């Protein structure tokens, strides 16, 4: 079927939001042209296709652009029915959508703050991340996702893609910020187990960049974020109110790796 007559994906190699779309297209075996964007020097094409948010990923299908990764994923699933990533049952779909919102509205931003801050602000953000992970852990342990290998069941679905592409950063951040523990396997055994299963999948390994590349990138970003705001490391928010503004200033000048890349 000529559904992929013209399919382009504008993305960024380190963007977890781009990875989501790449993974979905790979699962469905859909051919597309990939265009790497330099987020510090965005192309005319990107700005034309996503004038509202000016972010990646953007999918352009037969010259019609789509922005926002979760919206793109649902579109892809509706156009290419092979290997579905959304379930058929309306209630199950609602549960998946709810937790996708949670991942992007709560968990993602909290992780972003952890990465862009230090001291008291970071401690508070780490607590927030733990609170959010605890909610997911509870659903895996005794709630809606009890007994499932993946959120989607026996194979990965929308929520696995959304949570998974992004969660691999948690281990990377832990490496970069010594002393910060985000996914303690003892505190979050089921989430930890799910993440390991997700990362072991061939399609995921083929989509997510190698850990050492991510580490190198994360270290550079972290250094820039801290240097940018405080001039040295280890300064707490009491001395530097700018710390709380860190995520905002960071996204202005540096590719933000934990929210839709700007």
């Amino acid at each position: 079927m000529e559904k992929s007559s013209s399919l382009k994906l504008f993305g960024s190699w380190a963007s977890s939001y781009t990875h989501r779309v790449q993974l979905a297209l790979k699962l469905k075996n859909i051919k597309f042209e990939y265009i790497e964007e330099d987020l510090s020097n965005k192309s005319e094409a990107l700005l034309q296709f996503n004038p509202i948010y000016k972010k990646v990923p953007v999918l352009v299908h037969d010259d019609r652009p789509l922005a926002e990764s979760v919206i793109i994923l649902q579109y892809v699933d509706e156009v290419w029915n092979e290997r579905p990533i959304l379930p058929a049952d309306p209630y199950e779909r609602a549960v998946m959508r709810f937790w996708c919102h949670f991942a992007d509205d709560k968990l993602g931003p909290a992780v972003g703050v952890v990465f862009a801050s230090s001291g008291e602000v970071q401690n508070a953000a780490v607590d927030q991340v733990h609170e959010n992970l605890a909610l997911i852990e509870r659903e895996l342990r005794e709630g809606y996702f009890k007994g499932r290998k993946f959120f989607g069941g026996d194979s990965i679905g929308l929520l696995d893609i959304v949570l998974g592409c992004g969660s691999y950063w948690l281990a990377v951040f832990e490496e970069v910020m010594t002393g910060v523990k985000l996914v303690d396997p003892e505190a979050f055994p089921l989430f930890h187990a799910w993440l390991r299963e997700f990362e072991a999948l061939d399609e995921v390994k083929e989509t997510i960049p190698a850990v050492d590349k991510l580490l190198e990138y994360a270290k550079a970003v972290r250094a820039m974020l801290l240097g940018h705001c405080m001039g040295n490391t280890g300064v707490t928010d009491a001395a530097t109110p700018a710390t709380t503004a860190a995520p905002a200033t960071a996204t202005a000048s540096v590719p933000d790796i934990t929210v839709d890349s700007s």
Partner: protein
Amino acid sequence: MMVGDCAKIMYEVKEVKLYGTWGSTYTAVVQNALKLKEVKYKYVQEDLENKSEELLRINPVHKQVPVLVVDGRPIAESLVILEYVDEMWKSPPIMPEDPYERAMVRFWADFIYKKVAPCSYTILFTVGEALEKAIEEFTRNLATLEEGIGKDFANAGKPFIHGAKPGLLDIIMGSSSGGIRLLADLTGKELIDKDKVPLVYSSVHSFESLPIAKETQVPYEQLLSRVLAKREKAFATEQP
């Protein structure tokens, strides 16, 4: 308890309950969607200053309304609820059939929730420079919304977003009519201007004129006095 024949609903349900709160736009959004589809439901009023055990049980993540509970199974977040309602009770549809148009509906719904709604809330509860900034931002985002609707929906303005019948975006915008009136009264400006944002205006005005919308609307005077009381409280705590 269910209205309609088997063809209208995905599969039989026995009980639909909506937990909401008085004067909340997001609650009104769900009420209007349910009414549009002639779904019989029981409404449970929540006092957000004194949340029930039940609410905390059915929405432990956000502890918010609205929550739809269908045969004991809860769904939270109005946009998620709306898509669920549309998938369960297919007639009349509130989402288009074409996948690209559906994506556009989702995009603009998300834009309204992320960019337009928060500004309007700020406008209600700030003064001075912060208020001026909020009005500016609201106006700018509204203009973006208007332009986007014009570009992405060929039948917008006739009189709803998709033409003759109301859809998801009309429900969201139309259910905000009380809030929109508040903005006008409190700022002295007609922020949803018929000439500046004709497509948005047409959607809101046409939707709020529907009998179901009128049924859902809370008495404006009461809404206004509640908001004024909240404002007084908010400004009082800001005094140096």
